[in-house]
């Protein structure tokens, strides 16, 4: 059983590396349109996966991605002209990280739905405060962001994703991955067998924010003009949650699958049929919650089990 598990892991690792390599060569032969599309898909994968990094094992539904994403966006808008691009992205992730540490420490007592409400309120608070600040002190609602070419944006996003994959893998195979699941299943029991629950929750939450901030910092350069409504749009939080749940949060590739499918759907539908796109989104979400508690990957696993039939039961 153990060797089979190891084989499977090596197989997955190889597949991931091949995928990343293919993605890395994409700009050499693909048209610009594909690069832009792939950047959007990668962005959603980063947001969804980093959401899942904390929320999937612990069961705490965070609606804060939009806050960290927006912080990244504004770091880019403010520092973009003053610092080189890598420093801007680093700054975006660092500020998000620090804010997440603070929020994590503040919300340790909040369980279940109150945590979701808090994180949601936080996004709206930052958005409205920042809106007021901009109008009051800069006199305009929005800001221009430095221009970065599409290929660079694509590569930066790809690097962020690669790092995120690495961190997800490292956390999952470490004892902390197990402990995070323990927190999700019974927080109290985890604490009584020696897990420093508060520190682990806060640290993981903050690590997940790093990638959201980085993604925001680089995406801002593509939009060239941002305002608080765009940057702190709660839809980014909702999307992360919904895409992850749709894909299935039991495995890291579930959120990837969910994000990839919906990011692609968004790209082809949202300009021409925005309302239908969101309508489909809502329907899919309800169907997922009702009938696919383990998401797409759960469905796939079930079908495979049924196809394999008795064979698997014997093994």
């Amino acid at each position, binding site marked *: 059983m153990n060797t089979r598990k190891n084989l499977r892991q090596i197989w997955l690792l190889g597949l991931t590396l091949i995928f990343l390599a293919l993605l890395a060569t994409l700009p050499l032969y693909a048209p610009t349109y594909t690069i832009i599309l792939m950047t959007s898909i990668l962005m959603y994968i980063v947001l969804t996966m980093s959401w899942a990094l904390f929320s999937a094992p612990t*069961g705490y*539904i965070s609606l804060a991605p939009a806050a960290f994403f927006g912080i990244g966006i504004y770091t880019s808008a403010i520092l973009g002209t003053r610092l080189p691009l890598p420093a801007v992205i680093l700054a975006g992730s660092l500020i998000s990280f620090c804010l997440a540490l603070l929020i994590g420490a*503040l*919300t340790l*007592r*909040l*369980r*279940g*739905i*109150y945590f*979701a*409400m*808090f994180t*949601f*309120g*936080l996004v*709206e*608070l930052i958005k*409205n*405060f920042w*809106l*007021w600040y901009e*109008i*009051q002190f800069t006199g305009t609602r929005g800001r221009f962001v430095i221009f970065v070419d599409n290929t660079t944006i694509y590569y930066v996003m790809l690097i962020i994703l690669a790092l995120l994959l690495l961190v997800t893998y490292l956390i999952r195979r470490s004892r902390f991955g197990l402990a995070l699941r323990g927190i999700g299943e019974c927080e109290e029991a985890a604490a009584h067998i020696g897990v420093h629950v508060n520190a682990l929750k806060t640290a993981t939450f903050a690590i997940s924010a790093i990638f959201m901030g980085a993604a925001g910092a680089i995406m801002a350069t593509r939009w060239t003009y941002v305002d608080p409504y765009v940057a702190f749009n*709660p839809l980014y939080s*909702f999307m992360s*949650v*919904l895409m992850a*749940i749709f894909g299935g949060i039991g495995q890291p590739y579930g959120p990837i699958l969910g994000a990839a499918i919906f990011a692609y759907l968004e790209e082809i539908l949202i300009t021409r049929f925005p*309302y*239908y796109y*969101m*309508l489909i*989104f*809502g*329907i*899919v*979400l*309800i169907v997922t*919650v*009702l009938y696919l*508690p383990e998401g797409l990957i759960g469905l796939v696993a079930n079908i495979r089990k049924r196809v394999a039939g008795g064979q698997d039961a014997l093994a």
Partner: protein
Amino acid sequence: MTIKIIEVLITGLLMGGLYALVAVGLSLQYGVARILNISHGEFIMLGGLTTWALYTALGVNPLLSLAICGPVAFILGFVIHRTLFKRLLASSASPAIFESNSMLAAFGLMFILQNIALLIWGPEIRGYSYLVIPVHFLGTLFGANRLLTFGLALVIGLGFYLFLSLTRTGKAIRAAAQDPPTAGLMGVNINNVLALCFGLGAAMAGIAGVLISMCYPVHGVMGLEYTIIAIIVVVLGGLGSIPGSFIGGFILGLIGSVVTFFEPGLALVAYYVIFILLLLVRPTGILGR
């Protein structure tokens, strides 16, 4: 100066009345049925836009719309609970899992209702004028529509309160809120009561939407804003308590009008600051258990 103060206070109270009505439905849905209904605001939006459509296309008096939107929203809510949330309740392993799942399902509902409305009515901001007659009141001027909606909000809220405290159905709802298993043993049909609650919550939202459309413009994406206000009021006043909703609504309305008086841009900021502080300090609400 005193005139100014009176004006700020009355504005706050008028807003508070509407906020209370906005929150009552959500309070019931979360307090009893344990569903944090993120799509609550969409029912408000549907009420508002339907009223607008009926008024502009057929000249239907908004007061008549109350009698249309309330029952229709009730049926919609009842059916949604019967088909969606009842099934979720049965498939969720624990109350905490049901709360998460039902919140996610409510997100789905939000997207569905909002975009159906956008497909029908488009994204434009709609408004109509109804009873925009200035009324002199304690040396200040207010639109008759504002005063009417305030009065209606109070009457409807009181009626709802009496319904819950005096009727048999109301008592069953309160029993279910406090102790579902025991209420079930005492012969209360829990699934019916929960669906009833969800339907009543939706009806209150629809009614609030009608009243809101009498004073403020309405549009397809207004829902979330009102959902948030409802959540804040519920957190302020405590879950499942109707007097709490009114107290919370008035507090929020007053804070809103005072902050608006000093710095209009910070009113929403103030709401969220209160919301977040409350969650941190007293998540069960100032009047909560």
